[in-house]
């Protein structure tokens, strides 16, 4: 919804508007929360049914014909496959709600432990990427909005298309070749958990992820800055001769941020997808590596199920928070 449409709304008396506004804010938060809870519930349901996609009997598939009846029964319990389907479902929901994501078949370690070990690495990678991506995308998007119809805007459009069409495993390998093997300014692979040493291992993968994040963020932000530039309040700000910084922050960026932030959930989803691949390219012991190496390649169903669920939940939570922040940043979205 553009401000233009907002301006056309019939104006209520001020007292009404305040009272109404307060009510709306609370209702909005409650309804968003309800919605997020429902979707979170849906995410759990899908994670539950994931295991049921295995053709035939998963236990049979894992044990072959060698399993003794006791072993089969133990596996059945470990996978949560004992009892009727509704029973299994309720038990799954119950244990997930208590924070229990099951046990790895291969290593007998709880999935929680695997996630607690690998998730921080991924979160660090994502944090570094976001900082780097914002530092690049903010100035780029403003310039691309202001100079939309010049060579710069055109180059921006084509370059972001090209970046988005370049798979991260390819750009990752090329940058690895350039920075780690040729220039030797980055480690080839590996990780140290201590800050700030870890940044040494994270900056190159984060740069690769920026190849996805910068075009996405900058494009969303650019189109919303373009909308803002058309607004009459930008014209009045120019006429008032405001300082460059004030003008850029308060009149161009802040009114344009809300739509971008409300897309944060979507962007985190894209980022997590790309991070899975990048972690494997750079041998980072993150959650993506765990998913592939400890989960998929070893047919460790509970690990896959648990990690995929965590991925979904991260997006649901980030989406909910980004809705709150964009409402706080832009009072317009409250009406």
């Amino acid at each position, binding site marked *: 919804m553009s*401000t*233009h449409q*907002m*301006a*056309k709304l019939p*104006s*209520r*008396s*001020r007292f009404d*508007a*305040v009272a109404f*506004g307060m009510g709306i804010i609370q209702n909005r938060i409650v309804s968003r929360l309800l919605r997020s809870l429902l979707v979170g519930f849906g995410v759990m349901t899908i994670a539950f049914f994931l295991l049921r996609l295995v053709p035939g009997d998963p236990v049979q598939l894992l044990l072959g014909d060698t399993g003794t009846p006791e072993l089969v029964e133990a596996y059945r319990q470990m996978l949560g496959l004992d009892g009727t389907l509704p029973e299994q479902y309720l038990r799954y929901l119950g244990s997930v709600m208590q924070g229990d994501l099951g046990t790895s078949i291969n290593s007998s370690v709880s999935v929680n432990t695997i996630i607690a070990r690998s998730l921080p690495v991924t979160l660090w990678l994502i944090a570094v990427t976001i900082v780097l991506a914002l530092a690049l995308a903010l100035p780029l998007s403003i310039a691309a909005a202001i100079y939309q*119809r010049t060579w710069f805007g055109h180059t921006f459009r084509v370059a972001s298309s090209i970046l988005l069409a370049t798979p991260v495993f390819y750009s990752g390998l090329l940058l690895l070749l350039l920075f780690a093997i040729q220039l030797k300014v980055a480690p080839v692979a590996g990780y140290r958990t201590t800050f700030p040493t870890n940044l040494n291992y994270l900056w190159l993968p984060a740069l690769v992820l920026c190849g996805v994040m910068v075009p996405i963020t900058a494009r969303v932000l650019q189109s919303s800055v373009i909308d803002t*530039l058309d*607004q*009459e*309040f*930008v*014209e*009045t*700000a*120019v*006429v*008032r*001769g*405001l*300082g460059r910084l*004030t003008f850029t922050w*308060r*009149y161009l960026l*802040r*009114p344009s941020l*809300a739509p971008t932030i409300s897309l944060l959930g979507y962007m985190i989803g894209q980022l997590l997808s790309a991070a899975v691949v990048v972690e494997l390219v750079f041998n980072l012991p993150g959650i993506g590596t765990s998913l592939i190496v400890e989960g998929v390649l070893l047919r460790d169903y509970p690990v896959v199920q648990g990690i995929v669920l965590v991925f979904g939940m991260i997006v649901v939570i980030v989406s909910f928070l980004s809705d709150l922040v964009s409402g706080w*940043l*832009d*009072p*317009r979205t409250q*009406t």
Partner: protein
Amino acid sequence: MQSGPLSLENRAGELQDNGQPLLQIRDLKVGFAKSHGILPVINTANLTLGRREAIGVVGESGSGKTMLCRSVLGTLDRHGARVLGGQIMFEAHDLANAPESVWSKVRGKQIGYVPQSSLAGLNPVINVKTQMVEAITAARPMSVQDAEKEAVELLEVVRIPRAKDVLREYSYQLSGGMRQRVMIAAALAQKPKLLVADEPTTALDVTVQKEILTLISRLRRELGMALILVSHDLAVIEEVCDSLMVMYAGASFEAGSVSVTVHAPRHPYTKALHDSRVDTAERGKPLEAIAGEPPTIGSWPSGCRFWPRCPLGDDKCRAGDQPTLRHVAQQLTACIYAERMGDGHD
């Protein structure tokens, strides 16, 4: 008001200095730079405005009146347009394609702007106080505390009740009329010598329109500002302004004092505008609409741009370029047959 933000003492000297006009626009040409060439929007605009004088600019949409405002405000390039010729003399500065060093002396200090109320003139994501303080400190450096005090005084000047509360609010919490009052207060913060108001009452309720116009009119007189009021409504201009400039298809058609221009026009277009007015129409007499459509930007007819719709139009009108303004009686007119429109014509 004695030593308030708007006291006139410090400007008394400037106000009397000489007989020079405050603003003089001569043969202004403005165009959009498009990939395939230039699309002209203003071809010959002329306007002279004395200190403390109020001029109305009237014209249909597409006549170039908003672009005229933008050339005075220095926001043409934002809209992809630029001055192609002519002069915009504001005091000693020529604002036509002026460099940033000139604009920085004028912007936010000498020319105030009240935008169309239909558009969001207030920034929706920051409150009224921040915007007022910004406007005040951009014009005259001072502490934030002083600026806040002045913001309250300014809101009181534009007759906003509970000024302190309103300062904490956001534009979406204000009514259309209130928003426009805040815009006027923010423009006054700059102690402007010239106030440019582009259709300031278009989207407001009729009663609120009247209030805002009265406010602008009163403030202008009390504060000794010059005013450019753009409108498509002759009645609005008649109420507020001393003189009038009529624009059509990017050209000045007629200029003079409001009363003479309205009641004894020397251009058939001005007369047609007057005849199509709703507010002065006589009962029982059919309202006369102007025949035909106004030409679209860039496809103006040759000769006088009004000839296809003009009752006086003939082959002579079609030839050559758009006629420039010339003196006929007390008026400036661009009609080659202006003499035919005698005093008894109306």
